[in-house]
């Protein structure tokens, strides 16, 4: 009987946790990510994954100008509506250096697209592209995982296009993507 009662208690606890889970934890969803590599680019993106993450400012920390504000994934029921949530795009990609020169840094251009393949403009940006500069050594012919983050305000992001547009090599030379427009499908 004792064992049965314990089992029932455990089952109840698990059910409650599962039931309140979606309300207690902030939203997170995987966004479609499409990789575009220019012909003859020295660094190729092999894989890319993007996640849209909701985060709350930590209620115990006062925001200090210039200071990094801690963020939490927990949705506090008693502080509902007091601390607004922020949305972050988190990207993970694997890049491969195709050249025999070590790479020192690269520039990623990220384009956010809606469900109708129209670029989404972020506030304060002049164009639809987001530029991320990554300082990272990639040895010749080696692959390297890269992470990037971008705060966003639009939640209608359907697809994210990621392109390597500039590469700096160890000898100081810089490769730049062609100035020609980049198109998808064909």
């Amino acid at each position, binding site marked *: 009987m004792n064992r049965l009662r314990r089992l029932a208690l455990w089952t109840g606890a698990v059910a409650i946790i599962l039931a309140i889970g979606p309300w207690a934890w902030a939203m997170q969803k995987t966004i479609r990510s499409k990789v575009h590599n220019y012909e003859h680019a020295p660094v190729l993106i092999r894989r890319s994954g993007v996640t849209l993450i909701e985060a709350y400012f930590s209620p115990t920390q006062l925001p200090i100008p210039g200071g990094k504000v801690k963020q939490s994934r927990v949705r506090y029921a008693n502080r509902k509506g007091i601390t607004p949530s922020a949305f972050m795009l988190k990207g993970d990609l694997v890049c491969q250096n195709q050249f025999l020169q070590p790479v020192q840094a690269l520039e990623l251009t990220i384009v956010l697209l809606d469900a109708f393949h129209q670029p989404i403009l972020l506030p304060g940006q002049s164009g639809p592209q987001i530029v991320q500069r990554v300082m990272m050594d990639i040895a010749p012919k080696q692959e390297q995982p890269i992470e990037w983050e971008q705060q966003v305000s639009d939640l209608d992001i359907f697809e994210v296009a990621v392109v390597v547009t500039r590469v700096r090599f160890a000898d100081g030379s810089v490769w730049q993507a062609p100035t*020609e427009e980049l198109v998808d499908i064909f």
Partner: protein
Amino acid sequence: MPPLRQWFHVSFPRLLSDWLLRFYRRPLSFLLGLVFIPLLIVVVAAYQVNARLLREQSLHNLGITARLAAEIVDRTLQETWRLEQLLAQEGLADAIKTRRPEAMQRQLEALVQLMPTAVSAHMLDVSGRVLAAYPPALERASAAEEGWFREAREPAWHPSVSAVYLQDEADGAPRPKVVSVTCPLLGHDDVLGLLQVEYRVDDVKSWLQTVRVEPEGFLYVVDQQDQLVVYPYQVLPGTPKRVSSWPPVAQPVDRAGSTLVFKDRHQRAWLAAVQPVGRTRWRVIATQPADAAMRTVSHVFVWLGLMCVLLFGLIVLISLRWVRLHEFSLDLLRQNSKLLRQLQQHRISRRKDDGEGKR
């Protein structure tokens, strides 16, 4: 009886019955030969015929879509020319004749403001010298070497639409893709000058937004230099992309347009229709993945295939019962004959016994 008739009436039925009897004794061959293979042949043949018909129909539909889109672009350009000509003849002609740059600039300003899709306007003389421009920041000394100027002048002065290009740099802002629509200003017996108005190509995109290619298809426009004017899947902006190597662009096209089936670099098959836009030498291309166009027929034939498999399974089940019944009747026959034999033997032995008794 003639030999052929004899063969048809005597030998052929015998051959057929022998063949059927042989098959009849082997249920698996019988089912495969008389049911499954003919059924498979019928389904495959029907699929091929339907797929071919649907492909032709899809190409025809793409052709109509491309023609419709080309017509929209052509008519809108014609209207633009007419409007430009009307506005120019109203005030610009006098300003050119009297050589008053301020008056020309005022007219150009009014023209740009009247046409919300226009970005800038230039008034040039026949040698290509810029007489006035609006906005003034875009003013340049001469446009004689510009492609659109040569396009408008050769072989004789005529209204023309240029190839797509990036607008001249202004205030470090992103340079949009533009096209020049030029229109010569005619005097009594000579050409007074050339009016050039630049339009953003985004407007061309908006002209075509009402035309859809479903499912998964899209329209794009290329200019006389095989550059993309409008393409719905642009990832990063830049100088116009030259797409001469794309099969629909590489294919020569006449006034009636053309259709083609091609494979992209990922080996995916596409259907496409190409239609020229009036006298501009632009082309509208309507394209659609072949598998998307064939989806209906594939969907129908998947279900038909499933039904055939079910039907075949049902026939197999009935046949197996029939085989069992057949075996049972054969057994019964065998037993009957055995009993008959035994009965005959029994009768013979009884007769023998009776004979010996009498003796």
